[in-house]
Protein backbone atom coordinates (compact mmCIF):
# COMPACT_ATOMS: atom_id res chain seq x y z
CA UNK A 1 0.00 0.00 0.00
CA UNK A 2 2.74 2.41 1.01
CA UNK A 3 4.74 1.31 -2.00
CA UNK A 4 1.74 1.72 -4.26
CA UNK A 5 1.04 5.23 -2.98
CA UNK A 6 4.64 6.27 -3.57
CA UNK A 7 4.53 4.74 -7.02
CA UNK A 8 1.35 6.64 -7.85
CA UNK A 9 2.89 9.86 -6.53
CA UNK A 10 5.77 9.50 -8.99
CA UNK A 11 3.35 8.69 -11.83
CA UNK A 12 1.39 11.84 -10.97
CA UNK A 13 4.65 13.85 -11.07
CA UNK A 14 5.41 12.44 -14.51
CA UNK A 15 1.90 13.29 -15.68
CA UNK A 16 2.20 16.84 -14.33
CA UNK A 17 5.41 17.37 -16.29
CA UNK A 18 3.98 15.80 -19.44
CA UNK A 19 0.76 17.80 -19.36
CA UNK A 20 2.51 20.98 -18.26
CA UNK A 21 4.97 20.91 -21.13
CA UNK A 22 3.09 19.13 -23.88
CA UNK A 23 -0.42 20.48 -23.39
CA UNK A 24 -0.12 23.69 -21.38
CA UNK A 25 3.21 24.72 -22.99
CA UNK A 26 4.69 25.83 -19.67
CA UNK A 27 8.28 25.35 -20.83
CA UNK A 28 9.42 28.39 -18.90
CA UNK A 29 7.95 27.08 -15.65
CA UNK A 30 9.28 23.53 -15.98
CA UNK A 31 12.60 24.41 -17.61
CA UNK A 32 13.62 27.46 -15.59
CA UNK A 33 11.50 28.43 -12.59
CA UNK A 34 11.09 25.00 -11.01
CA UNK A 35 14.76 24.01 -11.39
CA UNK A 36 15.90 27.30 -9.82
CA UNK A 37 13.38 26.95 -7.03
CA UNK A 38 14.46 23.37 -6.39
CA UNK A 39 18.12 24.38 -6.26
CA UNK A 40 17.46 27.17 -3.78
CA UNK A 41 15.30 24.89 -1.62
CA UNK A 42 17.98 22.21 -1.74
CA UNK A 43 20.90 24.42 -0.75
CA UNK A 44 18.92 26.46 1.77
CA UNK A 45 17.22 23.44 3.28
CA UNK A 46 20.44 21.47 3.48
CA UNK A 47 22.31 24.27 5.23
CA UNK A 48 19.38 24.89 7.57
CA UNK A 49 19.13 21.23 8.51
CA UNK A 50 22.86 20.85 9.18
CA UNK A 51 23.06 24.04 11.25
CA UNK A 52 20.03 22.92 13.23
CA UNK A 53 21.77 19.64 13.96
CA UNK A 54 24.95 21.47 14.82
CA UNK A 55 23.12 23.52 17.42
CA UNK A 56 22.04 20.51 19.42
CA UNK A 57 24.49 19.65 22.19
CA UNK A 58 26.24 16.32 22.29
CA UNK A 59 26.36 15.81 26.04
CA UNK A 60 27.95 12.42 26.14
CA UNK A 61 30.94 10.87 24.54
CA UNK A 62 29.31 7.97 22.74
CA UNK A 63 31.66 6.57 20.10
CA UNK A 64 30.94 2.97 19.26
CA UNK A 65 34.02 0.90 19.79
CA UNK A 66 34.69 -2.06 17.60
CA UNK A 67 38.20 -2.91 18.75
CA UNK A 68 40.69 -2.79 21.57
CA UNK A 69 40.68 0.46 23.48
CA UNK A 70 43.92 2.31 24.12
CA UNK A 71 45.24 0.76 27.28
CA UNK A 72 48.52 -0.46 28.69
CA UNK A 73 51.46 -0.04 26.33
CA UNK A 74 51.84 -3.77 25.67
CA UNK A 75 48.20 -4.16 24.62
CA UNK A 76 47.77 -3.38 20.93
CA UNK A 77 45.17 -0.71 20.31
CA UNK A 78 42.77 -0.89 17.36
CA UNK A 79 43.66 2.57 16.09
CA UNK A 80 40.83 2.89 13.56
CA UNK A 81 38.11 0.87 15.27
CA UNK A 82 38.73 2.61 18.58
CA UNK A 83 40.43 5.86 17.64
CA UNK A 84 42.03 8.18 20.15
CA UNK A 85 43.60 10.53 17.61
CA UNK A 86 42.15 12.93 15.03
CA UNK A 87 43.84 10.94 12.27
CA UNK A 88 42.19 7.74 13.48
CA UNK A 89 38.79 9.43 13.44
CA UNK A 90 39.39 10.78 9.94
CA UNK A 91 40.33 7.32 8.65
CA UNK A 92 37.33 5.80 10.38
CA UNK A 93 34.97 8.42 8.91
CA UNK A 94 36.50 8.03 5.45
CA UNK A 95 35.96 4.27 5.57
CA UNK A 96 32.40 4.92 6.68
CA UNK A 97 31.65 7.49 3.98
CA UNK A 98 33.41 5.87 1.04
CA UNK A 99 32.96 2.18 1.85
CA UNK A 100 30.03 1.99 4.33
CA UNK A 101 32.05 0.10 6.90
CA UNK A 102 29.30 -0.27 9.47
CA UNK A 103 26.96 -1.67 6.85
CA UNK A 104 29.68 -4.15 5.99
CA UNK A 105 29.30 -5.52 9.51
CA UNK A 106 25.62 -6.15 8.90
CA UNK A 107 24.49 -9.52 10.21
CA UNK A 108 21.36 -11.56 9.88
CA UNK A 109 19.65 -13.67 12.48
CA UNK A 110 17.40 -16.53 11.49
CA UNK A 111 15.54 -19.42 13.00
CA UNK A 112 16.63 -22.59 11.25
CA UNK A 113 15.31 -26.08 11.62
CA UNK A 114 17.80 -28.02 13.70
CA UNK A 115 17.97 -31.65 14.82
CA UNK A 116 16.11 -30.96 18.03
CA UNK A 117 13.76 -28.10 17.26
CA UNK A 118 14.43 -24.65 15.81
CA UNK A 119 17.91 -23.20 16.11
CA UNK A 120 18.88 -19.53 16.19
CA UNK A 121 21.70 -18.84 13.76
CA UNK A 122 23.67 -15.69 13.02
CA UNK A 123 25.48 -15.00 9.79
CA UNK A 124 26.98 -12.23 7.77
CA UNK A 125 24.75 -10.37 5.33
CA UNK A 126 26.69 -8.51 2.67
CA UNK A 127 24.12 -7.99 -0.08
CA UNK A 128 22.72 -4.78 1.34
CA UNK A 129 26.22 -3.40 1.71
CA UNK A 130 27.11 -4.39 -1.83
CA UNK A 131 23.87 -3.04 -3.31
CA UNK A 132 24.24 0.28 -1.49
CA UNK A 133 27.85 0.62 -2.51
CA UNK A 134 27.01 0.05 -6.18
CA UNK A 135 24.05 2.42 -5.92
CA UNK A 136 25.88 5.31 -4.26
CA UNK A 137 29.04 5.11 -6.36
CA UNK A 138 27.08 4.83 -9.60
CA UNK A 139 24.99 7.80 -8.53
CA UNK A 140 28.11 9.87 -7.83
CA UNK A 141 29.69 8.98 -11.17
CA UNK A 142 26.45 9.76 -12.99
CA UNK A 143 26.27 13.19 -11.31
CA UNK A 144 29.89 13.96 -12.20
CA UNK A 145 29.22 12.84 -15.77
CA UNK A 146 26.30 15.27 -15.97
CA UNK A 147 28.75 18.14 -15.43
CA UNK A 148 29.34 17.98 -19.18
CA UNK A 149 26.03 19.80 -19.55
CA UNK A 150 26.92 22.50 -17.05
CA UNK A 151 30.52 23.32 -17.91
CA UNK A 152 31.89 24.74 -21.14
CA UNK A 153 34.57 23.82 -22.04
CA UNK A 154 34.12 20.38 -20.53
CA UNK A 155 36.98 19.69 -18.09
CA UNK A 156 39.27 16.76 -18.72
CA UNK A 157 38.25 14.73 -15.66
CA UNK A 158 34.62 14.75 -16.79
CA UNK A 159 35.64 13.49 -20.23
CA UNK A 160 37.85 10.87 -18.60
CA UNK A 161 35.08 9.55 -16.38
CA UNK A 162 32.76 9.58 -19.37
CA UNK A 163 35.11 7.51 -21.49
CA UNK A 164 35.85 5.04 -18.68
CA UNK A 165 32.15 4.65 -18.05
CA UNK A 166 31.49 3.89 -21.71
CA UNK A 167 34.64 1.84 -22.23
CA UNK A 168 32.85 -1.32 -23.36
CA UNK A 169 31.65 0.59 -26.46
CA UNK A 170 28.51 -1.47 -26.77
CA UNK A 171 26.14 0.17 -29.20
CA UNK A 172 25.99 3.79 -30.21
CA UNK A 173 25.90 5.95 -28.18
CA UNK A 174 27.96 3.61 -25.99
CA UNK A 175 26.15 2.11 -23.03
CA UNK A 176 27.36 3.51 -19.72
CA UNK A 177 28.31 0.86 -17.18
CA UNK A 178 26.97 3.00 -14.34
CA UNK A 179 23.55 3.24 -16.03
CA UNK A 180 23.21 -0.53 -15.86
CA UNK A 181 24.69 -0.82 -12.36
CA UNK A 182 22.54 1.99 -11.06
CA UNK A 183 19.29 0.60 -12.37
CA UNK A 184 20.08 -2.90 -11.07
CA UNK A 185 20.99 -1.51 -7.65
CA UNK A 186 17.83 0.60 -7.34
CA UNK A 187 15.68 -2.34 -8.35
CA UNK A 188 17.49 -4.56 -5.84
CA UNK A 189 17.04 -2.01 -3.04
CA UNK A 190 13.34 -1.81 -3.88
CA UNK A 191 12.77 -5.56 -4.14
CA UNK A 192 14.61 -6.06 -0.87
CA UNK A 193 12.03 -3.92 0.87
CA UNK A 194 9.23 -5.94 -0.63
CA UNK A 195 10.73 -9.39 -0.26
CA UNK A 196 11.93 -9.41 3.34
CA UNK A 197 8.94 -9.41 5.71
CA UNK A 198 10.76 -7.61 8.52
CA UNK A 199 12.04 -4.90 6.19
CA UNK A 200 8.64 -4.55 4.56
CA UNK A 201 7.08 -4.12 8.00
CA UNK A 202 9.30 -1.16 8.87
CA UNK A 203 9.27 0.43 5.39
CA UNK A 204 7.38 3.69 5.10
CA UNK A 205 6.14 5.69 2.16
CA UNK A 206 9.15 7.93 2.79
CA UNK A 207 11.35 4.91 2.01
CA UNK A 208 9.61 3.93 -1.19
CA UNK A 209 9.10 7.41 -2.62
CA UNK A 210 12.81 8.28 -3.03
CA UNK A 211 13.42 4.86 -4.59
CA UNK A 212 10.65 5.34 -7.12
CA UNK A 213 11.59 8.88 -7.98
CA UNK A 214 15.25 7.87 -8.44
CA UNK A 215 14.09 4.96 -10.56
CA UNK A 216 12.00 7.38 -12.63
CA UNK A 217 14.99 9.69 -13.09
CA UNK A 218 17.20 6.80 -14.16
CA UNK A 219 14.66 5.35 -16.57
CA UNK A 220 13.84 8.70 -18.17
CA UNK A 221 17.56 9.40 -18.57
CA UNK A 222 18.21 6.01 -20.13
CA UNK A 223 15.25 6.40 -22.50
CA UNK A 224 16.54 9.80 -23.54
CA UNK A 225 20.01 8.52 -24.28
CA UNK A 226 19.31 5.24 -26.01
CA UNK A 227 15.77 5.25 -27.33
CA UNK A 228 13.91 8.54 -27.77
CA UNK A 229 16.72 11.00 -28.25
CA UNK A 230 16.34 14.63 -27.35
CA UNK A 231 18.37 17.41 -28.87
CA UNK A 232 21.45 17.25 -26.68
CA UNK A 233 22.92 20.51 -27.94
CA UNK A 234 19.70 22.32 -27.01
CA UNK A 235 19.74 20.61 -23.61
CA UNK A 236 23.22 21.91 -22.96
CA UNK A 237 22.21 25.40 -24.05
CA UNK A 238 19.38 25.29 -21.52
CA UNK A 239 21.65 23.99 -18.76
CA UNK A 240 24.37 26.56 -19.48
CA UNK A 241 21.76 29.31 -19.56
CA UNK A 242 20.61 28.25 -16.11
CA UNK A 243 24.07 28.32 -14.55
CA UNK A 244 25.00 31.57 -16.30
CA UNK A 245 21.85 33.16 -14.89
CA UNK A 246 20.70 34.01 -18.42
CA UNK A 247 18.05 31.32 -18.69
CA UNK A 248 16.46 30.72 -22.05
CA UNK A 249 14.42 27.86 -23.47
CA UNK A 250 15.86 26.53 -26.72
CA UNK A 251 13.42 25.14 -29.25
CA UNK A 252 12.75 21.50 -29.78
CA UNK A 253 13.75 19.65 -26.61
CA UNK A 254 11.56 16.57 -26.20
CA UNK A 255 9.05 16.23 -23.37
CA UNK A 256 11.07 13.34 -21.95
CA UNK A 257 13.74 15.82 -20.94
CA UNK A 258 11.24 17.91 -19.03
CA UNK A 259 9.99 14.81 -17.20
CA UNK A 260 13.59 14.01 -16.26
CA UNK A 261 14.19 17.57 -15.11
CA UNK A 262 10.96 17.80 -13.15
CA UNK A 263 11.65 14.55 -11.28
CA UNK A 264 15.15 15.77 -10.42
CA UNK A 265 13.78 19.13 -9.27
CA UNK A 266 11.26 17.33 -7.08
CA UNK A 267 14.00 15.16 -5.61
CA UNK A 268 16.17 18.19 -4.89
CA UNK A 269 13.35 20.13 -3.27
CA UNK A 270 12.29 17.08 -1.25
CA UNK A 271 15.85 16.22 -0.21
CA UNK A 272 16.30 18.42 2.89
CA UNK A 273 13.03 17.23 4.41
CA UNK A 274 13.70 13.56 3.85
CA UNK A 275 15.83 10.67 4.99
CA UNK A 276 18.14 11.49 2.10
CA UNK A 277 19.72 14.01 4.46
CA UNK A 278 21.92 11.14 5.61
CA UNK A 279 24.24 12.68 3.02
CA UNK A 280 24.98 15.48 5.47
CA UNK A 281 24.05 13.59 8.59
CA UNK A 282 26.71 10.93 8.24
CA UNK A 283 29.35 13.56 8.99
CA UNK A 284 27.58 14.40 12.24
CA UNK A 285 27.18 10.84 13.53
CA UNK A 286 28.33 11.11 17.14
CA UNK A 287 29.02 7.39 17.41
CA UNK A 288 31.50 7.66 14.54
CA UNK A 289 33.06 11.10 14.61
CA UNK A 290 34.21 11.18 18.22
CA UNK A 291 37.52 10.08 19.58
CA UNK A 292 37.23 7.27 22.05
CA UNK A 293 39.02 9.11 24.84
CA UNK A 294 36.23 8.88 27.39
CA UNK A 295 38.59 8.22 30.28
CA UNK A 296 41.70 9.99 29.03
CA UNK A 297 40.14 13.45 28.95
CA UNK A 298 37.56 15.04 31.23
CA UNK A 299 34.48 15.82 29.18
CA UNK A 300 32.13 18.43 30.49
CA UNK A 301 28.50 18.44 29.55
CA UNK A 302 28.09 21.41 27.21
CA UNK A 303 24.65 22.25 28.53
CA UNK A 304 25.81 22.43 32.14
CA UNK A 305 24.65 25.74 33.56
CA UNK A 306 26.93 27.73 35.78
CA UNK A 307 25.26 27.06 39.13
CA UNK A 308 25.32 29.95 41.60
CA UNK A 309 26.69 28.73 44.90
CA UNK A 310 27.01 30.44 48.23
CA UNK A 311 29.77 28.66 50.09
CA UNK A 312 30.11 28.65 53.88
CA UNK A 313 33.21 30.85 53.68
CA UNK A 314 31.21 33.46 51.74
CA UNK A 315 28.33 33.12 54.20
CA UNK A 316 30.66 33.73 57.08
CA UNK A 317 32.19 36.75 55.32
CA UNK A 318 28.74 38.20 54.89
CA UNK A 319 27.48 37.66 58.42
CA UNK A 320 30.69 37.58 60.49
CA UNK A 321 29.88 40.65 62.54
CA UNK A 322 26.38 39.49 63.33
CA UNK A 323 27.59 36.02 64.17
CA UNK A 324 30.19 37.38 66.59
CA UNK A 325 27.61 39.56 68.29
CA UNK A 326 25.32 36.57 68.72
CA UNK A 327 28.22 34.53 70.08
CA UNK A 328 28.28 32.03 67.25
CA UNK A 329 31.79 30.65 66.73
CA UNK A 330 33.42 31.68 63.44
CA UNK A 331 36.22 29.95 61.60
CA UNK A 332 38.05 33.07 60.58
CA UNK A 333 38.45 35.98 62.94
Amino acid at each position, binding site marked *: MKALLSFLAVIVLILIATLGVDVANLHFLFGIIIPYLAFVL*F*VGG*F*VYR*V*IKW*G*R*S*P*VPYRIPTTCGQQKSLPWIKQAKIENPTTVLGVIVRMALEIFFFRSLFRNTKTELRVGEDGPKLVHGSAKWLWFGSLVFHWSFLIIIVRH*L*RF*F*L*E*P*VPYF*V*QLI*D*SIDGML*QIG*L*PPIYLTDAFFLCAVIYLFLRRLALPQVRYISLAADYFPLFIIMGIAISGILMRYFF*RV*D*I*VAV*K*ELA*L*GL*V*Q*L*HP*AIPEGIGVLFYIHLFLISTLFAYFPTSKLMHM*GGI*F*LSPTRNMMSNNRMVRHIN*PWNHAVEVHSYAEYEDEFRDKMKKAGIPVEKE
Partner: protein
Amino acid sequence: MYKGGRIIASLIIFVAFLTLPFFFNLGKANAGPDLPTYASSSDSQCVEPAAYMKANHMQLLLKWRDSDVRDGNSVYINSQGKSFDISLETCVQCHTTQATKNTVGVNNPALNTSDQFCVSCHNYASVKPTCWNCHSGPEGATK
Protein backbone atom coordinates in the same frame (compact mmCIF):
# COMPACT_ATOMS: atom_id res chain seq x y z
CA MET B 1 26.69 25.79 18.13
CA TYR B 2 28.95 22.91 19.01
CA LYS B 3 31.99 22.44 16.77
CA GLY B 4 30.47 25.32 14.84
CA GLY B 5 33.67 26.26 13.06
CA ARG B 6 34.09 22.88 11.48
CA ILE B 7 30.42 22.56 10.54
CA ILE B 8 30.27 26.02 8.94
CA ALA B 9 33.54 25.42 7.08
CA SER B 10 32.23 22.11 5.74
CA LEU B 11 28.99 23.74 4.66
CA ILE B 12 30.89 26.47 2.84
CA ILE B 13 32.90 23.83 0.96
CA PHE B 14 29.71 21.94 0.14
CA VAL B 15 27.96 25.04 -1.20
CA ALA B 16 31.10 25.98 -3.14
CA PHE B 17 31.01 22.58 -4.85
CA LEU B 18 27.34 22.96 -5.70
CA THR B 19 27.76 26.43 -7.14
CA LEU B 20 30.93 25.52 -9.05
CA PRO B 21 29.14 25.54 -12.44
CA PHE B 22 27.86 29.06 -11.75
CA PHE B 23 31.38 30.40 -11.26
CA PHE B 24 33.00 28.22 -13.91
CA ASN B 25 30.84 29.72 -16.64
CA LEU B 26 30.82 33.23 -15.27
CA GLY B 27 31.03 35.87 -17.96
CA LYS B 28 31.16 33.44 -20.87
CA ALA B 29 28.73 33.69 -23.73
CA ASN B 30 26.18 30.93 -24.08
CA ALA B 31 26.51 30.86 -27.83
CA GLY B 32 26.15 27.14 -28.38
CA PRO B 33 28.39 25.29 -30.77
CA ASP B 34 29.53 27.10 -33.88
CA LEU B 35 27.93 25.18 -36.67
CA PRO B 36 30.39 24.90 -39.52
CA THR B 37 29.39 26.40 -42.83
CA TYR B 38 29.13 23.61 -45.31
CA ALA B 39 30.45 23.62 -48.82
CA SER B 40 27.51 24.54 -50.98
CA SER B 41 25.53 21.66 -52.31
CA SER B 42 22.80 21.60 -54.89
CA ASP B 43 20.98 19.03 -52.81
CA SER B 44 19.88 20.55 -49.52
CA GLN B 45 18.91 17.34 -47.75
CA CYS B 46 21.41 14.98 -46.17
CA VAL B 47 21.21 11.21 -46.62
CA GLU B 48 18.08 11.23 -44.51
CA PRO B 49 15.96 14.19 -43.27
CA ALA B 50 17.80 16.52 -40.89
CA ALA B 51 15.76 15.61 -37.80
CA TYR B 52 16.50 11.93 -38.32
CA MET B 53 20.19 12.63 -38.91
CA LYS B 54 20.44 14.75 -35.79
CA ALA B 55 19.15 11.97 -33.57
CA ASN B 56 20.36 8.87 -35.37
CA HIS B 57 23.48 9.70 -37.41
CA MET B 58 25.64 7.50 -35.20
CA GLN B 59 23.45 4.51 -35.75
CA LEU B 60 23.26 5.16 -39.46
CA LEU B 61 27.06 5.21 -39.60
CA LEU B 62 27.16 1.96 -37.65
CA LYS B 63 24.69 0.43 -40.08
CA TRP B 64 26.82 1.67 -42.97
CA ARG B 65 29.92 0.13 -41.48
CA ASP B 66 28.25 -3.26 -41.04
CA SER B 67 26.69 -3.09 -44.48
CA ASP B 68 29.89 -2.16 -46.30
CA VAL B 69 32.58 -3.93 -44.30
CA ARG B 70 30.75 -7.07 -43.23
CA ASP B 71 28.09 -7.60 -45.89
CA GLY B 72 29.95 -6.11 -48.86
CA ASN B 73 26.98 -3.94 -49.79
CA SER B 74 28.21 -0.46 -50.54
CA VAL B 75 24.97 1.18 -51.63
CA TYR B 76 22.50 2.68 -49.17
CA ILE B 77 18.93 3.34 -50.22
CA ASN B 78 17.33 5.98 -48.03
CA SER B 79 13.73 6.37 -46.91
CA GLN B 80 12.86 8.25 -50.10
CA GLY B 81 14.33 5.59 -52.35
CA LYS B 82 17.44 7.54 -53.29
CA SER B 83 20.68 5.60 -53.29
CA PHE B 84 23.97 6.73 -51.81
CA ASP B 85 27.46 5.40 -51.91
CA ILE B 86 28.39 3.99 -48.50
CA SER B 87 31.55 5.92 -47.79
CA LEU B 88 32.74 8.75 -45.61
CA GLU B 89 33.37 10.54 -48.89
CA THR B 90 29.63 10.82 -49.32
CA CYS B 91 29.44 12.70 -46.01
CA VAL B 92 32.48 14.80 -46.68
CA GLN B 93 31.20 16.02 -50.07
CA CYS B 94 29.02 18.47 -48.16
CA HIS B 95 30.30 18.30 -44.61
CA THR B 96 33.69 19.90 -44.97
CA THR B 97 34.87 22.57 -42.66
CA GLN B 98 35.77 25.93 -43.99
CA ALA B 99 37.28 27.00 -40.75
CA THR B 100 38.28 30.44 -41.91
CA LYS B 101 34.69 31.36 -42.68
CA ASN B 102 33.61 30.91 -39.10
CA THR B 103 33.53 33.76 -36.71
CA VAL B 104 35.43 33.34 -33.50
CA GLY B 105 33.08 32.04 -30.85
CA VAL B 106 32.90 29.81 -27.86
CA ASN B 107 33.40 26.68 -29.80
CA ASN B 108 34.89 27.64 -33.08
CA PRO B 109 36.10 24.63 -35.02
CA ALA B 110 39.05 26.73 -36.08
CA LEU B 111 40.23 26.84 -32.50
CA ASN B 112 39.94 23.12 -31.99
CA THR B 113 42.79 20.73 -32.48
CA SER B 114 40.94 18.92 -35.21
CA ASP B 115 38.99 20.60 -37.95
CA GLN B 116 36.64 17.73 -38.71
CA PHE B 117 33.17 19.17 -39.08
CA CYS B 118 31.90 16.93 -36.29
CA VAL B 119 33.98 18.53 -33.57
CA SER B 120 32.00 21.64 -32.76
CA CYS B 121 28.86 19.81 -31.68
CA HIS B 122 30.73 16.80 -30.38
CA ASN B 123 33.08 18.85 -28.25
CA TYR B 124 30.20 20.95 -27.03
CA ALA B 125 28.33 17.88 -25.84
CA SER B 126 31.56 16.11 -24.86
CA VAL B 127 30.93 13.09 -27.03
CA LYS B 128 34.00 11.49 -28.57
CA PRO B 129 33.43 9.78 -31.90
CA THR B 130 35.79 6.90 -32.57
CA CYS B 131 35.66 7.33 -36.36
CA TRP B 132 39.03 9.01 -36.66
CA ASN B 133 40.79 6.28 -34.72
CA CYS B 134 40.97 4.41 -38.04
CA HIS B 135 39.73 6.76 -40.76
CA SER B 136 42.11 9.35 -42.04
CA GLY B 137 39.52 12.10 -42.19
CA PRO B 138 38.14 14.39 -44.86
CA GLU B 139 41.41 15.77 -46.29
CA GLY B 140 42.78 12.32 -46.99
CA ALA B 141 39.49 11.08 -48.25
CA THR B 142 38.81 13.85 -50.74
CA LYS B 143 42.21 13.63 -52.42
